[in-house]
């Protein structure tokens, strides 16, 4: 972890008022992203990965969701700056690509109109120049017939084309960080690979940092430098991508890898699903949230939530894991 982190999230928590008592969808999450770095955040649905990103952009329903912690970006703590300053960060500091591109585009506006809107309103571009830039962006993301598409409505495009439009919109104001929240989930497998390749290429060409959120380790494997694995609102393991795949430590990470089909190995054994269901965040199990499903669970796991600690001697630098059981293993 470099000291000149671009985005530095520290002890971020998001709490909602529950039926009986408040519950947390994001709990004590810290991570850093250096300029140009690609971070993957992986976990099952409902583990808090999207909540984390929406909290960073302050796009959660504000009086309901209670956000605590620090979100340092460009010398500001985003958690505390006024709404107007926050708006200036959105789009031009941090861009967001959300998952379902049909519902993420305004059905009543043409592609050109919604793409160009902030360029004209906030970046002082003339309408024609803004549309020109939008056409270039659509070209950049490989949308066929880019110029003609400016006049199309979202429902006239295919799923893959819409996702490309959404990516073009997210990078239109030159953000330093691009957050892609499950950008390929709604797409066919072949289109998925294209869109991932596109995001990777854009990150390199434009020098952006990338935070890629997915429930699929396979999706983040190819294009990220580091990965954080989340479970029940917390980061349970974080490491460099190669380290995480070569030496996964947390039982949950191992279970995720074991449940993933591998193309590079002969299929010797059946895929192993993870037994049980993710916990109800309103009533999390005591102690380590994963222990009811954990193969290594032992007495004491239900006692207290373990800390996220750096793996000692022999481990790779910056490999952290939230499990005392595996820490006792000899590496």
């Amino acid at each position, binding site marked *: 972890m470099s000291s000149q982190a671009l985005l530095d999230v520290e002890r971020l928590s998001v709490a909602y008022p529950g039926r009986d008592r408040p519950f947390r969808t994001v709990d004590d999450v810290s991570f850093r992203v250096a300029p140009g770095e690609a971070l993957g955040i992986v976990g099952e649905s409902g583990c808090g990965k999207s909540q984390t990103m*929406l909290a960073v*952009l302050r*796009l959660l329903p504000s009086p309901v969701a209670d956000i605590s912690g620090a979100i340092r970006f460009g010398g500001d703590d985003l958690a505390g700056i006024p*709404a107007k300053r926050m*708006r*200036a*960060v*959105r*789009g*031009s500091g941090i*861009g*967001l690509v*959300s998952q*379902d591109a049909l*519902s*993420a*585009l*305004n*059905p*009543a*506006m043409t592609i050109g109109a*919604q793409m160009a*809107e*902030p360029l004209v*309103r*906030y970046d002082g571009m003339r309408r024609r120049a803004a549309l020109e830039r939008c056409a270039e962006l659509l070209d950049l993301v490989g949308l066929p017939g880019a110029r003609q598409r400016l006049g199309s*409505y979202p*429902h006239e495009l295919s799923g893959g084309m819409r996702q490309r439009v*959404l990516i073009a*919109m*997210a990078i*239109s*104001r030159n953000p330093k960080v691009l957050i892609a929240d499950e950008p390929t989930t709604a797409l066919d497998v072949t289109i998925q690979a294209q869109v991932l390749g596109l995001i990777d290429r854009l990150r390199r060409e434009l020098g952006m940092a990338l935070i890629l959120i997915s429930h699929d380790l396979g999706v983040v494997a190819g294009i990220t430098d580091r990965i954080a694995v989340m479970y029940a609102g917390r980061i349970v393991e974080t490491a460099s991508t190669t380290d995480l795949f070569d030496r996964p430590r947390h039982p949950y990470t191992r279970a995720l890898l074991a449940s993933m089909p591998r193309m590079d190995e002969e299929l010797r054994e059946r895929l192993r699903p993870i037994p049980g269901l993710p916990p109800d965040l309103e009533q999390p199990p005591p102690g380590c949230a994963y222990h009811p499903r954990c193969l290594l669970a032992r007495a004491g796991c239900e006692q207290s939530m373990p800390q996220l600690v750096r793996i000692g001697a022999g481990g790779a630098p910056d490999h952290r894991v939230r499990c005392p059981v595996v820490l006792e293993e000899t590496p």
Partner: protein
Amino acid sequence: MLTFTVRRALQMIPVAFGVTLATFLLGQIIPGDQAAALLGPSSSEQERQALREEMGLNEPVLTQYVTYLGNLFTGDLGRSLSFGRPVMSVLAERIANTVLLSGTAIVVAALLGVAIGTWAAMKPGSVRDRGLTVGVLFFNSIPSFWFGLVLIMTFSLGLRLLPATGMTSIGGGGVVDVVAHMVLPVITLAAWSLAVIARMTRSAVLEVIGNDYVRTARSRGVGEMRVVVRHVLPNALPSVVTVIGLQAGFLLSGAVLTETVFSWPGIGLALYQAISTRDIPLIQGGILLIAIGFVLINFLVDTLQAYFNPKIKLA
């Protein structure tokens, strides 16, 4: 868009025919002898028979309808019994007054209703949001003629701020005078619709504001006011426009009560007088006019819908 508008306009023709049929049959169904009503109780049976013959009331119903339609096309709606003038001229001199009153009321109700509903929806559960719910309940629970009377008692008789009846003061006229006379009836007419429109806008805005594309706009730095005006309202308004259209039709007929309470010289007051004097041609004419107004408003609503929703436009 143009094809849609033309096609939708053509659809009005059969509806209009249906309307004429309904108003014509209305005249047939209402009991009572038009000739007797016209000639008075001292007339002889021979005189009545002669008049029926002259008016074509002895013809078969179908022939009468064809004649009625033919007259309609030449702008002849018959003779008003109570006014002793052609129905057309009675309605013609009053329609502008009704349009002025109802039109102002619907514009006020629509603008304020959409604004208040949106304003409340931007902070669900807040004091202003709950205030809206209470206000809606209140204004939808009170009858308009009672509300009108209360307004007259308070502002005209009590505070002596505004005139209570008529359209102009004696010896008055001029814009200021008419506007002063309009204030109370417009409030009376608009209150009910305003409440309905505000409630509808609130729920429509709440539904749309949670959409992903609203988040997309915010995530690109678009300001909250602009998000609401450019991204939320265009997607929320189609359902609101439908309600506004229905309310506009409602106001047209609701004007009967309000115009009567405030003695506003419009179609509504004429209809009220026509009903109390069994003036069947005038009743028919007034209802036909209101019904045609309703059809036109619906056409306008559908065209606006298409304008807001590109998917309809292309269909």
